[in-house]
């Protein structure tokens, strides 16, 4: 089952094992400069709000209602990273797609797992995912852009602006395999149809600036995953105007720019994943043009405040360390 808890998606598989639960949340962050330089990891600035699509069914376009799942607000050109947390160390395979194109392999969405090329990340080995796997050890940051302008990964890969949003499917490790691993290591609302007041244009995710982040190879093998039990969720992304019209809530404020953040002396992060092997970048994703590159070609300036920054304060985080904390609460951030 998937439930919403404190703006995070909690995936539980009690039919597989009582420990089989993990949490996925979407972190607000600053957008790294899209200047073809490689940056370390930016901070987390608190999670994006999430709401059940069904709570606002009467105000939503039919296509949004049909998909189910949850809704999340993002400003145009705002960046985001995905945080994975598990309570017990229970391993999971997680597929992430944007606009129904896989963020790891670039291939069209399928509900099952593929190993060659690997199209999923493995928890708890992978604590977060910041963008598209474009090269070995390099991702391009997830940046929200309106569908239909040609910037999103979906439009660049498929030529169509059809889905937008984010898609997730989670597979737990097989119960027997988990036990061996442990031993070795010690309500749908049927609302009346009323005219919908929200325009159906959705937001999608596009490749932004380059960042150093490894996507780890699956150390367990495809056979470790319980492919009979999976849970999936569609995350619809609403722009700030839509979000307020739908929920009556104000969206979070626009995060500081990379320059403002860096000049305030706040830290960036590097993650050392130990001996883990990184997967190669996906050929399809490598060919994607970033938002800034595409904007230049179109004669547009889609990214405000895209100046390069010199990062001097970098905090190292390690896989075996005590915390992998790269998150700030909002009152810890210095706003200009």
């Amino acid at each position, binding site marked *: 089952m*998937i*439930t*919403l808890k404190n703006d995070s998606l909690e995936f539980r598989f*009690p039919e597989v094992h009582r420990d089989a639960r993990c949490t996925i949340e979407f972190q607000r962050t600053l957008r790294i400069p899209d200047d073809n330089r490689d940056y370390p990891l930016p901070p987390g600035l608190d999670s994006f709000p999430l709401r059940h699509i069904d709570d606002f069914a009467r105000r939503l376009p039919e296509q949004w209602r049909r998909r*189910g*799942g949850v809704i999340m607000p993002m400003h145009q050109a705002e960046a985001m990273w995905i945080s994975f947390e598990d*309570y017990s160390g229970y391993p999971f395979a997680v597929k992430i797609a944007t606009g129904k194109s896989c963020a790891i392999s670039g291939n069209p969405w399928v509900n099952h797992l593929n190993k060659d090329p690997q199209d999923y990340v493995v928890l708890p080995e992978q604590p977060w995912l910041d963008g598209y796997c474009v090269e070995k050890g390099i991702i391009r940051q997830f940046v929200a852009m309106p569908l239909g302008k040609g910037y999103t990964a979906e439009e660049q890969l498929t030529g169509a602006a059809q889905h937008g949003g984010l898609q997730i499917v989670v597979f737990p490790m097989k119960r027997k395999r988990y036990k061996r691993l442990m031993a070795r290591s010690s*309500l749908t609302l049927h609302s009346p149809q009323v005219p919908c007041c929200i325009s159906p244009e959705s937001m999608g995710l596009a490749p932004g600036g380059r960042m150093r982040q490894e996507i780890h190879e699956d150390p367990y093998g495809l056979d470790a995953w319980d492919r009979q039990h999976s849970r999936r*969720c569609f995350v619809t992304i609403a722009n700030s105007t839509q979000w307020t019209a739908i929920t009556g809530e104000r969206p979070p404020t626009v995060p500081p720019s990379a320059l403002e953040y860096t000049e305030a002396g706040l830290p960036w992060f590097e993650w050392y994943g130990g001996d883990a092997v990184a997967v190669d970048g996906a050929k399809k994703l490598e060919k994607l043009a970033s938002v800034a590159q595409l904007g230049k070609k179109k004669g547009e300036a889609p990214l405000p405040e895209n100046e390069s920054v010199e990062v001097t304060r970098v905090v190292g985080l390690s896989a075996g360390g005590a915390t992998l904390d790269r998150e700030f609460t909002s009152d810890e951030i210095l706003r200009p």
Partner: protein
Amino acid sequence: MTHFGKSIRTRREHLHLEDKRYSLRQVALRIGIEPAYLSKIERGEVSPPSEATTVRLAHELGEDPDVLLALAGKVSGDLQNIIRKRPKLFAELIRQLKEAPDHALLHVVREVRDGEW
């Protein structure tokens, strides 16, 4: 020593066995309180800390914030607000479910619906 203090000390010391960053001093500094204050909390010499500090401590120690708040004799502010908005409904709901086994409660929890996509 209170149950709250004993629980967090046990958990912190367990983590400290494998990672030196879970010393009393380092944990206190990471959650923004004085080490001497955390020491007193662990020994039950003072009342459990504020909700915000308890939640930070829960995140730091990998514990569930609601469980730690319950040990501290508190209910989180967001839950209080939910009940205050519809007190009659939620009071009735909670009373009716108080004896229900865990697996039955899980059926009541609202799931995120998967649709067609």
